[in-house]
């Protein structure tokens, strides 16, 4: 069995991309941490030859739901000035991609995240999100084309 450190080294970036696409930049860090902690707890039971990346993306999906649920219970910080949280220099076109992702219906956004960024097959995406393999394929395609329309045209013109 590979040292867990190697699993982190090999998949840290992929899992963070998936978490960022699923949750946005702020909550992604928490989801990333909880994903790898949960993976570490379960690592000894991972069957030899398992697809480690798919396993991690599956865990990331569950953790993203947890983080989302907690975030929705969090009271909105009405006293905080938004500019403090988002310094001007960070407000680049990056925000446009996150805004475009956030505007997608959950199923499209998560299908894009898990298939295109996380490398899951459409069948695996369907198992995670419910519905059929064909529906997952369609959701990912619709998500990508909406991203192209809203993000690319917005950011590039």
């Amino acid at each position, binding site marked *: *069995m590979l*040292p*867990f450190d*190697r699993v982190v080294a090999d998949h840290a970036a992929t899992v963070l*991309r998936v978490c960022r696409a699923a949750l946005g930049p702020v909550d992604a860090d928490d989801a990333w941490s909880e994903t790898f902690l949960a993976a570490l707890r379960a690592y000894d039971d991972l069957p030899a030859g398992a697809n480690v990346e798919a396993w991690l993306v599956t865990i990331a999906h569950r953790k993203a739901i947890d983080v989302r649920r907690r975030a929705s219970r969090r009271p909105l910080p009405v006293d905080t000035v938004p500019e403090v949280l988002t310094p001007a220099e960070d407000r680049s076109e990056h925000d446009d991609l996150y805004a475009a992702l956030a505007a997608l219906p959950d199923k499209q956004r998560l299908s894009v995240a898990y298939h295109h*960024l996380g490398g899951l097959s459409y069948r695996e995406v369907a198992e995670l999100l419910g519905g059929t393999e064909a529906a997952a394929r369609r959701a990912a395609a619709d998500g990508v084309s909406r991203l192209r329309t809203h993000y690319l045209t917005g950011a590039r013109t």
Partner: protein
Amino acid sequence: MTDLTTTDLTPLEPDEATLGRLRARLAGEADRAGLLDVAYTTIDSPVGVLLLAATDRGLVRVAFECEGLDRVLEALAARLGARILAAPDRLQGAASQLEAYFAGTLRHFDIPLDLRLASGFRLSVLGHLAEIGYGRTESYTQVAAATGSPRAVRAVGTACATNPLPVVVPCHRVLRSDGALGGYLGGLEAKRNLLALEAAA
């Protein structure tokens, strides 16, 4: 990602600093939760990069770069469990004592050791090595005699060559009877350097 090649996803791309920060946070949380079989770190030293690894009992492995750090971690995973992360906090004591040793200001290590990677005759050889004082040397023959097996000179050599805790358990203080260096798992240059360091201090 073929369908997305025309879409610029670089905002999602993590930079090294972010990944480093997240990995450090993970290591800290994992260590505090008791989830790690082995914590490790690497330090620079006059004899090259050293890998230091510890279990919850103590320092379990010191490895030289020439041993192949990936290979060392894989061997540790096989022997002690695969839940291994770079978690420098657990190695702070060992790292600072080694630093003082290489600076010539520390002559005797005082850190908990986990000797479970050695057993039997090799373990008793390591026990004797710990008694060879700073700046002194013994021959393989003397070590064999001191461990009660005077004919086991070759086995003493093997015990030194497989010492899981070089530098800290001073197998570099064992030479051939004619004064030649013998072998060293960190390379003869490293052995020479350590002996010179101790002779000078």
